[in-house]
């Protein structure tokens, strides 16, 4: 079997790690191993620079309000490099808080406006005393794939120009409970409010992400039948 090497950046991996988001990385590593891909993961946290040319994939999870507020300040110092990475078609998966911070702004727990890095044009409002919690299901027409997950978020995100949703809501609330969109696809960035089990329940999406990474770096794509164990 051919051997490949990819380097993953787990952005704020030691701070934004709520709701099993880390499971997505574990699943990418699990499938990658079966495909002969060596994975090296590096955490880039507060007070550390992000090098846009160093990584083949960035995973950006969500966190508790306090950690997220701290990260939202720190990320302003990484903003230019992250925008460069995204504009050079860098592959990224952003969950919940990560998804919000890539956008224009979000409204924090105490009603304060917290700046994102404005790499993507969406913005996030908050709900009064309500969270979108529960099992959810979305459909992506372009890929003809259905994704299953669990959502638990207060934020209501509205997509902007050039952003496509990851899927249309079949069951659950999605980005904002209003327009039936869930998540985002923008260049090689995928964002979602599904946490932990996003890739656990959706192996096609896991393979899709691996293919985005491998296609860019090695001009190589895999099919489901290349996986030994799912």
């Amino acid at each position, binding site marked *: 079997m051919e051997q490949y090497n990819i380097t993953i950046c787990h952005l704020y991996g030691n701070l934004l790690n709520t709701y099993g988001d880390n*499971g997505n990385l574990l699943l990418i590593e699990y499938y990658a191993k079966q495909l002969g891909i060596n994975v090296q993961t590096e955490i880039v946290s507060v007070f550390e620079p992000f090098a846009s040319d160093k990584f083949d994939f960035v995973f950006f999870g969500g966190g508790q309000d306090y950690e997220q507020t701290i990260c939202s300040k720190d990320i302003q110092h990484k903003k230019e490099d992250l925008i460069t990475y995204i504009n050079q078609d860098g592959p990224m998966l952003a969950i919940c808080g990560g998804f919000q911070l890539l956008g224009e702004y979000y409204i924090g727990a105490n009603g304060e406006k917290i700046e994102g890095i404005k790499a993507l044009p969406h913005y996030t409002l908050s709900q009064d005393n309500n969270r979108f919690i*529960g099992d959810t299901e979305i459909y992506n027409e372009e890929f003809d794939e259905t994704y299953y997950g669990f959502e638990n978020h207060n934020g209501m995100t509205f997509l902007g120009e050039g952003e496509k949703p990851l899927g249309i809501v079949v069951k659950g609330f999605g980005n904002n409970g209003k327009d039936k969109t869930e998540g985002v696809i923008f260049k090689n960035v995928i964002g979602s409010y599904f946490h*932990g089990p996003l890739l656990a329940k959706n192996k096609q999406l896991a393979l899709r992400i691996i293919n985005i990474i491998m296609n860019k770096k090695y001009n190589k794509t895999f099919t489901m039948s290349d996986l030994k164990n799912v």
Partner: protein
Amino acid sequence: MGLRSGVATTAGKFSQWFLKTFTKGGSSLPGKIALKIDPNVLDSLAKDYEIVVVTGTNGKTLTTALTVNILKEEFDHVLTNTTGANMVQGIVSTFLQDKKKKNGKNVAVLEIDEASLSKVTTFLTPELFLFTNIFRDQMDRYGEIYTTYKLIVDGASKAPKATILMNGDLPIFNSVNTINKREYYGFDYEQGHNLTAHYNTDGVLCPHCHHILRYNMITYSNLGDYYCPNCEFKRPKLDVSLTNIKAMTNISSAFTIDQEDYKIEVGGMYNIYNALAATAVAKHYNISSDKIRRGLAYDEKVFGRQEVINIDGKKCTLVLVKNPVGLNQVIETMKLSTDPFSLVALLNANYADGIDVSWIWDSQLEELASLDIPTTISGGERHADMSLRLKVAGIKPETLSETTSLQHVIEEIKQVPTEHIYILATYTAVLGLRKELIQQGFIKEGM
């Protein structure tokens, strides 16, 4: 006692008698009735007691049990609430059924749910609060660690003269000032330097300057002798210190606290913390080391806490798991076992378990892969989630079997190749399994 609370007490006691005589229930309805008649009933019920309150995410039940056992050595009468009765109604019921001593000192050691603390302290005034820890736990119900911590600090502030005895090794407990005076217990052994917590750990930010905390010593999770590499923030001075662990197995431990040796008959580092917490309460009351030793020698098993059940000759250790830190500690304890064992993992997602099962991805089940476990059975309503998690953790698919019904789990347990079995289960899965075991005659009712 005023007329209204007198009526409330009588009604509560009567309904308790009624329920006990004619049904098997009675742990919270009498409290509900009494509270309905007089919302202040707790105030009058609790007035002759010295009250110690135990709260926090993990370890409440065993810490309460150990504390009660020690205090019984010293005081005339010690009241406590039973497992599961740790919200307001259950606490009222507990006082209703108690027979206090007319002469002598009555003490109440109450395990109180983090979210209920403030409601309880509105009506009664504890002398001492014990905070075990705050970890992420069923976040669909409790919210974030900082929110939970604020709840218990606010709860304690309603009894401003009471001391808070807290785990000094947990950074969040040193993050805000409190009205209440604080005392700390913690570990002081094996000093290293410049360690960091596992990346998937909560609460590792310095509350002052937001750098990632470092440690001279880590016991588990984010507990240890922490310091900020950038500012003055560090662990406070400990009032009660554990200086040595002489032995630690999956079923017992021996250790030294303030120059005295103690033993407990329950395994794992997390239970040493529970024993240390109970000892710190005893020291707060100047109880002698001999009495502490006798109290800690407790070996009755508490609901789902390492109780061993015999199923046709298979020795099954049943452990309740409900959050990542707890599960990690159970895995660490399993690693101490000298006997080979099989594993059963039962995952449910009812309200009492937490409807969000994503927490299994936050625990370090990868540690199991090195243990060479011959058979693993995944079960419960969310067996599919559990199976995938176990496979990703490195459990070999050919050693993994998956089953839906708890009845079938028991059948499979009888077939495993080892004498010892660890059963890890969420709350309603423990209840369901116990019910099935009672029906099949492997355990008696009532525990």
